[in-house]
């Protein structure tokens, strides 16, 4: 992670580890990936798994207004004041990578409104394989793909698959039905990613998100150490 620099001078820059009042800010984890791979479902499951021990908030970056935020609200994974939607002008990748100003306002507003927070999950709207989060916005990023999107996605690579701090291959329960070869996906991912971790999930059961939740806990331990 890239959190060992604190900006000097008056400007609050996204990557600053300290808030303007000197306190340490929440860990920010970004979740990206193609449309329909289960990003919002993963965020919802993470909130359920972690909310009893941690103070969590979520920022969504939707293509159309605030539908992902609305899903999280409907499913009551967090109180509404802990969920903020950023509007992206039809370009979520711009809002999470090229112009992160609206997302930075959102994470700061959440810390001001419901803080202190331990963890802020920043979810990108479904986009393409090249969409990654700016290091000015998040401390670590998760890229979520699924077996139904084609088992050749890990082989194809792209910045999301190759560089994300965690690659999640979701919907493993569907593998037999769509003819996806999980071993092949694991091998291809390892070839693309070297030492970077890959987990396989199926969110049909309550514990399905456990590998991701464990990884998040490890990131938090490193952040607060």
């Amino acid at each position, binding site marked *: 992670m890239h959190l060992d620099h604190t900006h000097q*001078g*008056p*400007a*609050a*820059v996204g990557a600053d580890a300290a808030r303007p009042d000197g306190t340490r800010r929440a860990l920010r984890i970004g979740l990206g990936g193609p449309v329909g791979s289960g990003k919002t479902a993963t965020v919802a499951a993470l909130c359920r798994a972690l909310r009893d021990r941690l103070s969590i908030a979520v920022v969504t970056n939707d*293509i*159309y*207004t605030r*539908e992902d935020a609305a899903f999280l609200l409907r499913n009551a994974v967090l109180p509404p004041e802990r969920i903020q939607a*950023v*509007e*992206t*002008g*039809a*370009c979520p990748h*711009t*809002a999470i990578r*090229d*112009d*992160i*100003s*609206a997302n*930075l*306002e959102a994470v700061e507003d959440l810390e001001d409104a419901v803080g202190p927070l331990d963890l802020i999950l920043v979810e990108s709207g479904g986009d393409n394989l090249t969409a990654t989060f700016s290091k000015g916005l998040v401390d670590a990023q998760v890229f979520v793909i699924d077996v139904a999107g084609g088992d050749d996605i890990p082989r194809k690579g792209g910045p999301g698959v190759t560089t994300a701090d965690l690659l999640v291959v979701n919907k493993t329960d569907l593998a037999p039905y769509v003819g996806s070869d999980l071993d092949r996906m694991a091998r291809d991912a390892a070839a693309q990613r070297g030492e970077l971790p890959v987990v396989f999930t199926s969110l049909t059961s309550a514990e399905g998100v456990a590998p991701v939740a464990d990884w998040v806990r490890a990131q938090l331990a490193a952040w607060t150490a």
Partner: protein
Amino acid sequence: MTTRAALLVLADGRFPAGGHAHSGGAEPAVAAGRIRDAQDLADYCLGRLHTTGLTSAALAAAAAHGLDPLALDEAADARTPSPALRAVARKLGRQLMRAARATWPSAELAALAAARPRGAHQPVVLGLTARAAGLGPEDAAHCVAYETVSGPATAVVRLLSLDPFEATAVLARLTPALDRVAAQAAAAAREGIGALPAASAPLLDITAEAHAAWPVRLFAS
């Protein structure tokens, strides 16, 4: 110490200050059938430029000229009857302030950020940013005038799948008008806050409130 290249950096659509999520009122105009093609876009941009564009450009020029930014912020409120548009102006002002303080830090920007932590009106912040970058009032006015038309043009390319070459040609044909508006705005700014224009556009105010209440939309404004 004026540097023309600084104007390019500030006016670049990639300057990370949040503009990409806004259509400048073009989304409701497209939905109402008032913008259907490149000619409509040109008419829309011309009207917006000569109303809210001139008003905003003059506020920016005045801030770049060194007039009191808090008085200008108040003047901007009086010139923005729509609460939805005031909220947008302050939100974008806050986003621009973040980018400006990272790119051209200045004591004046810091003071305005402290006085208006929820954001000052975007043109006022832009004028102060231009000042911090060593640019003049007319540069600031040019920048705002250009944003007034480039935002809707970019949005209409996405909303109507308009040919991007046509949209850019619309902007190119507007450049003499942009120059005139920038010069007019800078001249007003030199006369002081009492001389600033207050040109407004009824349809922009009317549709901004309705658009802010749409449950599903592509652009924030």
